């Protein structure tokens, strides 16, 4: 595929213009009142104009600046973004349009409940549908993102044990293949992380779990399917081991897309489940956020969910604060409502077809795996003869040994061919990894061309590896220097330090 990304030599916004202009008119109708008020403010607390370095631009300059920047960005509307565990599916436009309705965006969180019955009903129905899809008793969309959902789940487990007088339960079991946010969330909730490895077949090692459970075990945090894209087939046995030891099971919903509407986490024995509405339920990722999370609980743990909960008393929808064992508030207000509305529209549109989402995403993964593993230099490492679910992890270890070309080089060469690269070097247990997730959105044609791109790159690796080291060439910039980016002497986290980097850029004269 021919791909040339736009390349604008676009100045940093502070350097865009030498003249003072205005981008937005602000009235001065109340000038006499503001002047009076300003006199009351002690000088120590008044800002002097000259200490504020901000651009002064007209509206047209600002729009052009950011439009040019957008042309140097790449989203799912531009092409495939096969990032593993990120579930970069298409964001249907009807979801975007309806969620931008003023009756969603212009609603104040402290408006009387009577004036927001529509929005509360949307949230209530969404929570109900999510409970149906997870097999939980209750769901709430309070967590503003996935990681905060993990943190909520870990805190619920923490408080559950504390309330039972079992404060000694300080250990959270987490597989080596887990997302980094799992151990980070567990530690934030005050747990010690106990790691368990994977077997060569790619399952969590049951014997290792048996060896570490004790009366110190608070629980286990698992994804199923795992980050290797494999279904943990002994999940029911794992659930028994943890429950018998007095622990609880936490489900990381990052990989739910593979089993949506087919298998329910709580049926597998999970007690608390977090979901990413911006992954499985089609809310866009926004270039890094905002997302939206959900937390679902079954059994005793349902009494521990954060407040407030959107509930229905048979007559009206309301915010329920009376949850005596609740862990408390995880965020102000009620969570990220706008992405939640998008997920609501997505589920309302598909209804029972969510099952097709799971089946086609799994079909896409296996079709891709079958074709791509025919290429030289690519291996699977774990569970070579097993079907994958939502994603597959390729290892370029062999290619690296034979040609010197790394997983990163391959990723950069994919960029040159118009594809966003997959997640690389993750999970950590797979050397030279590419973690590929296609979701149900990618067409067979696109998958075939992705395989072709890999074929071309691998062939080049064996023929002329140096050529790959120069990738990417077709993106708006070539490879960046990470040492300069991170060294204390040159690190430039904001514009005021820009001369640190500028001074080392070679101009044609030097």
């Amino acid at each position: 595929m021919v791909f040339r990304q736009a390349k604008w030599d676009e100045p940093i916004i502070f350097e865009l213009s030498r003249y003072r202009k205005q981008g937005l008119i602000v009235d001065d109708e109340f000038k006499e009142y503001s002047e009076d008020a300003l006199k009351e403010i002690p000088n120590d607390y008044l800002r002097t104009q000259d200490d504020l370095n901000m651009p002064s631009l007209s509206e047209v300059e600002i729009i052009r600046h950011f439009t040019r920047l957008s042309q140097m960005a790449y989203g799912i509307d531009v092409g495939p973004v096969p990032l593993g565990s990120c579930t970069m599916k298409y964001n249907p436009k009807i979801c975007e349009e309806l969620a931008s309705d003023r009756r969603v965006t212009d609603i104040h969180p402290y408006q009387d409940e009577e004036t927001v019955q529509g929005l509360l009903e949307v949230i209530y129905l969404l929570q109900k549908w999510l409970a149906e899809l997870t097999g939980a008793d209750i769901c709430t969309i309070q967590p503003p993102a996935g990681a905060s959902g993990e943190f909520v789940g870990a805190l619920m487990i923490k408080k559950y044990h504390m309330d039972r007088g079992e404060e000694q339960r300080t250990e959270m079991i987490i597989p080596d293949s887990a997302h980094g946010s799992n151990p980070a969330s567990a530690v934030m909730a005050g747990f010690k992380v106990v790691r368990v490895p994977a077997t060569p077949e790619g399952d969590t090692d049951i014997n290792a779990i048996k060896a570490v459970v004790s009366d110190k075990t608070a629980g286990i945090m698992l994804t199923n399917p795992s980050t290797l894209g494999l279904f943990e087939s002994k999940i029911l046995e794992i659930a028994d081991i943890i429950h018998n030891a007095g622990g609880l099971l936490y489900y990381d919903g990052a990989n739910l897309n593979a089993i949506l509407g087919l298998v329910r986490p709580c049926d597998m024995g999970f007690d608390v489940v977090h979901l990413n509405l911006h992954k499985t339920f089609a809310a866009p990722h926004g270039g890094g956020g905002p997302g939206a999370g959900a937390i679902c609980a079954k059994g005793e743990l349902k009494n521990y969910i954060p407040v407030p909960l959107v509930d229905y008393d048979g007559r009206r929808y309301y915010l329920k604060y009376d949850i005596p064992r609740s862990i408390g508030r995880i965020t102000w207000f009620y969570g990220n409502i706008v992405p939640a509305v998008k997920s609501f529209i997505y589920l309302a549109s598909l209804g029972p077809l969510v099952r097709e989402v799971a089946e086609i995403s799994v079909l896409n993964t296996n079709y891709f795996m079958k074709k791509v593993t025919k290429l030289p230099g690519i291996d699977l490492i774990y569970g070579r003869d097993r079907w994958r679910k939502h994603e597959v992890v390729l290892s370029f270890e062999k290619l690296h040994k034979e040609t010197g070309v790394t997983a990163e080089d391959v990723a950069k060469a994919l960029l040159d061919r118009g594809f966003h690269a997959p997640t690389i070097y993750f999970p950590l247990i797979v050397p030279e990894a590419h973690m590929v997730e296609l979701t149900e959105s990618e067409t067979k044609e696109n998958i075939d061309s992705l395989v072709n791109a890999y074929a071309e790159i691998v062939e080049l690796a064996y023929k002329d590896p140096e050529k790959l080291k120069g990738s990417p060439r077709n993106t708006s910039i070539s490879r960046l220097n990470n040492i300069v980016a991170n060294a204390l002497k040159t690190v430039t986290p904001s514009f005021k330090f820009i001369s640190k980097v500028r001074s080392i850029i070679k101009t044609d004269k030097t």
Partner: protein
Amino acid sequence: MIKMPHPWIPNSVPSVKNEMLRELGVTDVSELFSDVPKELILREPPKVGLGKPLTEYEVRRFFEGIISKNKVLQNPPPFIGGGVCYHYVPAAVKAVITRSEFYTAYTPYQAEIAQGLLQAIFEYQSLMAELYGVDVVNASMYNGSTAAAEAVRMAVRVKRNRRKVLVSKTVHPEIREVIKTWSFGSGLEVVEVEYDRKTGRTDINDLQAKLDDEVAAAFIQYVNFFGVLETDLKDVVELTHKYGALAVVYSNPIVLGVLKSPGELGADIIVGDAQPLGLGLNYGGPSAGILGTKFDRELLRQLPGRLIGATATEDYRELGFTMILQTREQHIRRERATSNITTNSNLEALAAAVYLSLLGAEGIKKIGEAILGRTNYALKKLSNINNLRVPVFDGSIHFMEFPMKVEGRDVEDVHKELISRHIHIGPLLRRFRDYAELRDCSLVCFTEAHTRSDIDLLVSALEEVLR
């Protein structure tokens, strides 16, 4: 019922699906799930939506039927405060954040194909650092409340052996609740500092009494939850530093064109919420949390969240942008990370960057003055109404918000009567458990989006209701 294929699932076309299955040597998709225990597979499709797929026009009608039960307050816009207020969202902001190259992108892990996104967030960080008077602001947290909780945790990491945090009771009650929830698992002690009932400002004597060498940080809101300017902030910072603790200051960005920045006043960590900067109300979320600090090795090392920096290309010929200092973050550091945050509020940060660019240095000052002028106008007008006590706090400066006390009648009744006239004040302070002394009060908020006739309408409605 709609037949396959669904437009969002292109390979559900039977001929395509069959060809792919053939490639795999299976006849049915269910074979790909053969490793899932049979008893776990649902026999029936799940009961979500309306039990059948909907066409686009059906889903639009369905949504309209529900959302029409919401009431948008337009004439006048709501006078509700309490952390977020109604502000105007410029069309140019919406135009930029609906560019789908931006909103459908992932976190910029592949820097070379995401330069535009990275540069925009670098600009957000830089603009925000200017506004708050600090050196570094991260790429955003979820919102002001979680930024506050993260700031507290950051302070405790910096002050390794100190496990106590002082939080003023003039800080938004929901922010204080969030700090407590985020702290209880790791065993931090959150101690609240009283406020002066007469002035509505943090009680500096109580703060001094509670400061000791166990305290990692003091957390104060400037302008505070009551809309009161904390005019002792300089002393608070000085006192906090004297005890070897860090000063964490929460501010609304919209007032900082007029007020001296918290950084300049000595704050070690600044926090805030970007909602007023063109983000909309969104029923409280999403928003973007602002978190920043000075260029200090130890503070930087403990800074949570993503950070974008400028760098050179490998051949040193061009300037570019990339994620920096990632060894602080969960995907590298796992259980030793500074935070678990992954997804943040990137698009909302972008909106704030566009908004600040539109205003510029002069505009941000003007909008602060426009808000201050309206606050003062409303304060004067409302202070003449019988059975209404305004201001509640004496000798303090109010910015954007203030409480008003209803006398002789229940504030809730007054509130309801106003709603019947399409006027919405709030929140009533009885909503929050710990302001018993203010249970007859409601907050009101005035922004650039309120006209003189909007405010006059509120004044005359209150005159009538309280007559």
